[in-house]
């Protein structure tokens, strides 16, 4: 058995281009996305897919015909019958949970080579029948004669038939406090005095940084994917060259009408995408002659009020830093998932607010509030420009952080993510 402090290495990773949902199901299912990215990643390794010890895939909304999508994809990627595959769900951080679970397995000595990732095809989340409609269908199935069926048919209320439940909207609404994710962000905007213009400016910057990243070939982790007609998808198609304050100012609020601040332009996009990280133990590194990108040092989960879920990164990252005796100046690069511009900005303000830190995180004695340098944060843009395929984001930010550290020749980084339902997750890594 390996000691709890046994090192876990991030060897390599890959992701699909992120494709914005544009009304109607997208060209790829979730397992299609994860399969194409995963098989490309496995192909460039010196071992066979069947040498993996397991496959762990985060997914917030797997389709009904592939509910254990981790296993489905492990088989589709050619890992073979003997490699177990499973699926994890921690809402927006499912992709980070997969990495955490892989780290635990490696630390326990149960696995040496793990493929951990995340995926969601939000464009394919279903429309559902309401309970009233389901009851109508069930009762119809009990009618045996044609007259009885006809009579039951006449009881159908068109309004019920024509108002399906939009599963995506349900999924993005907190079931305990009854707020949509956007409304939790409005809460934070109110609490930390973030106005519309500031949110929009943050969003424009996300697009600009993504553009610049594209130009500087910062996204080495993207593998192009193809549909069965030979059409290529090679870039994140939500990034807008024409993003501007004027353009964003025209958008109407989505979550609190009519005078809310959060719009489609300063929120993350609804997107399809998959991302993978290949994790290895010391033993696997030796055995296969692997060249790790980074060492994954530690990971922290935190819980907080669902009404303010956007502050999750603060609640997860600060204890992580405290545990390792790190200050803001010690962190070279940050990734904080951009669920909403207001939400990231609230995190920055909260971390710099002594009063907030004292009351919200009393256990962190002696930890000074600090200003997160925004020039080190999401340096190649974030989910506002790239999209937020819920299950994939936790993996994407971890993987991209490793690539960004390499590109900038920096050493230490934290990737953090807020989680619908009132949680946060953060991972600390060191580039090699």
């Amino acid at each position, binding site marked *: 058995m390996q000691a709890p402090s046994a090192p876990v290495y991030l060897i390599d990773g890959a992701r699909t281009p992120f494709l914005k949902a544009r009304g109607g199901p997208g060209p790829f299912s979730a397992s299609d996305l994860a399969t194409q990215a995963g098989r490309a990643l496995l192909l460039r390794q010196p071992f066979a897919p069947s040498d993996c010890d397991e496959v762990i895939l985060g997914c917030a909304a797997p389709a009904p015909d592939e509910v254990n999508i981790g296993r489905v994809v492990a088989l589709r990627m050619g890992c073979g019958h003997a490699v177990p595959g499973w699926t994890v769900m921690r809402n927006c951080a499912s992709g980070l949970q997969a990495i955490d679970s892989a780290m635990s397995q490696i630390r326990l000595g149960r696995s040496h080579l793990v493929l951990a990732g995340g995926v969601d095809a939000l464009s394919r989340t279903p429309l559902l029948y309401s309970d009233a409609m389901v009851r109508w269908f069930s009762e119809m199935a009990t009618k045996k004669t044609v007259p009885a069926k006809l009579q039951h048919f006449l009881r159908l209320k068109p309004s019920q038939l024509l108002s399906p439940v939009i599963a995506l909207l349900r999924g993005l609404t907190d079931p305990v406090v009854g707020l949509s994710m956007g409304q939790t962000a409005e809460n934070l905007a109110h609490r930390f005095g973030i106005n519309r213009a500031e949110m929009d400016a943050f969003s424009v910057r996300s697009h600009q940084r993504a553009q610049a990243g594209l130009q500087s070939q910062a996204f080495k982790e993207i593998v192009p994917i193809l549909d069965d007609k*030979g*059409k290529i998808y090679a870039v994140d198609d939500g990034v807008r060259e024409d993003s501007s304050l004027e353009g964003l100012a025209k958008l109407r609020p989505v979550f609190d009408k009519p005078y809310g601040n959060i719009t489609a332009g300063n929120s993350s996009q609804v997107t399809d995408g998959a991302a993978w990280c290949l994790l290895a133990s010391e033993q696997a590194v030796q055995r296969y002659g692997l060249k790790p990108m980074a060492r994954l040092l530690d990971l922290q989960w935190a819980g907080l009020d669902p009404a303010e879920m956007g502050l999750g990164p603060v609640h997860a990252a600060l204890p992580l830093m405290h545990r390792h005796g790190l200050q803001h100046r010690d962190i070279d690069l940050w990734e904080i998932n951009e669920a909403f511009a207001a939400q990231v900005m609230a995190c920055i303000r909260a971390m710099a607010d002594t009063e907030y830190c004292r009351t919200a995180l009393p256990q962190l004695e002696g930890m000074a509030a600090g200003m997160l340098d925004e020039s080190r944060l999401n340096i190649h843009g974030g989910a506002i420009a790239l999209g937020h395929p819920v299950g994939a984001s936790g993996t994407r930010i971890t993987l991209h952080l490793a690539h960004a550290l390499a590109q900038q020749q920096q050493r230490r980084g934290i990737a953090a993510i807020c989680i619908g339902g009132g949680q946060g997750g953060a991972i600390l890594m060191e580039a090699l």
Partner: protein
Amino acid sequence: MRHWNLTRDAHGIAWMRLDTAGASMNKLSAEVLAEFSAQLDEFDLKPPAGMIIQSAKDSGFIAGADVEEFKALDKPQQAQEIIARGWHLFNRLAAVPYPTLSLIRGICLGGGLEISLACRYRIAVDEPATRLGLPEVLLGIVPGWGGMLRLPRLIGPQAALDMMLTGKTLDARRAKRAGLVDLAVPARLMERSAAELIRSGRPPHRPSGLPALMNHPLMRPIIAAMAKKQVAKKARPEHYPAPYAIIDLWQKADGDPLKMPQLMQTIIGSPTTKNLLRVFFLQERLKSLGKESSFKAKHLHVIGAGTMGGDIAAWGALRGLTVTLQDQDISRIAPAMGRAGALFKKRLRDPLLRRAAMDRLIPDTTGEGIQHADVVIEAIFEDLQAKHALLQQIEPRLKPGAILATNTSSLRIEDLRTALADPSRLVGIHFFNPVAMMPLVEVIAAVGTQPQAAADAAAFVRSIDKLPLPVKSAPGFLVNAVLAPYMLGAMRKLDEGIAPSVIDAAMRRFGMPMGPIELADTVGLDIALAAGRQLSDVASPPTCLMERVEQGHLGKKSGRGFYEWSKGAIANRSDVAAIPEGLAESLIAPLVDRTEALVQAGVIADADLADAGVIFSTGFAPFRGGPLNWNKTRSIRG
């Protein structure tokens, strides 16, 4: 009994399991049928509660009669005996008083289907290997053991004639839908289903509605006429008499070959039958060439995603290999992926199988697949320098024991391999266009090529369901070397003033699937010119070819060559009135001569293999048995 195992179950059902001794697949040889007949005699005295016929071999149900026995078909007396034997025996089987059932798993062809048709019930096991058909027509003969009698009565004459005239096979589900089998069941329930169905007392299947009507004697002439018209589109009666005979036998004799002995003599005695049988054995011989090595490939890497490379990769994935397809960037690989998607849609019914095939085909812009590959085939453009550079890059990354192959048509193995540290490992694996349709693959070895590499390559070719043809390294190998003088010779006739449509019509009448001028247009006139320069012994190219290439009329791909092309077909195809005597013979002469020369030079091991190679790559009139066979037999006849 040597070939049959008989057991009885608790209900008194007799299970007759066929395991033809000394054969890998079950066949209904004279001995097998004799034993069956003897067993029926015993059942006459003590009838079982029912009889189920099953195969004891994993290789399939029953592949048909013993084709070796067909070799004696040209002796009319023996032919008569073979036909009568099965006809009478299966009639007897159809008349026994106890229920009978045929449990079909795997290949069920010819006599195998006929014995099943004579049973009251049929069950097919729903697996990809299960295929039911009557392919006798492909050997130039007819389903003389009751197929022409019972199949139309069971599934209606239109569906039955379609099967018998084309030799096509049905899988289990289609067989069920057609009414050919009563049930399509999963393997896990096959024996239980058979045991239950045979005791169920269900009336035997009869077609209803329109198919039933069409069996009526008054309808037969109409249907027969329609069928003949359909056949005439594909096969001329003077070349392929068998399909016409099937129609006649069904219409006039209710499928009883013994009622029309003259017709049967014509069929059996026709050179077509002899030649088609010969072709069948040639095909078996090519298949066996892949058995000399036990090489097994799981991963194929193809470099060059053009028409050939892309399609080779798609074919490999269709046949179950993991395939990595490499080219310089994704936009060059994408069209190949689209074509692969279309191929899988056409050849695979099940959406899960289609998806699995796509999953197995992986675009690879950096050659990551090489380290994992069992076979690497380079199919980049025909430039020696480029191929040298590529081979040098590939060699150090190869797995030990991996095959390194080139799909080159025009470069020499001897020249290509100088770039390698181990030149002896390079073989040629040369596919034909279109890959999905052309069964032949030339496996090319030069002096100094490791024999193991060539044997492994042949085994690989066989494993992806193609026919390997061993050829020694020489310009054009076999197929292109014989086609070039043939096409150029045709063009010289054009220069002499004969119209292209006349030339092509002459060769189609001879039995080629398309004429040489149309072939040239299809291949591309620039390619024909280049090939001609390399492979022809005449100094200057035909004028008509030069003119067109200079003007950019390159054939089908540019919309105009010798013909006008539109939407992939010749526009305004004109009918040809008169074809000069002897034109076809003089057109085919260069091909025959060159084939003979290549055999003499040892490029191809013997005349039979040469014939096989030409037939399975060019579609050379199979009913003539191959160019050298035709040449030999016509000079015998004078």
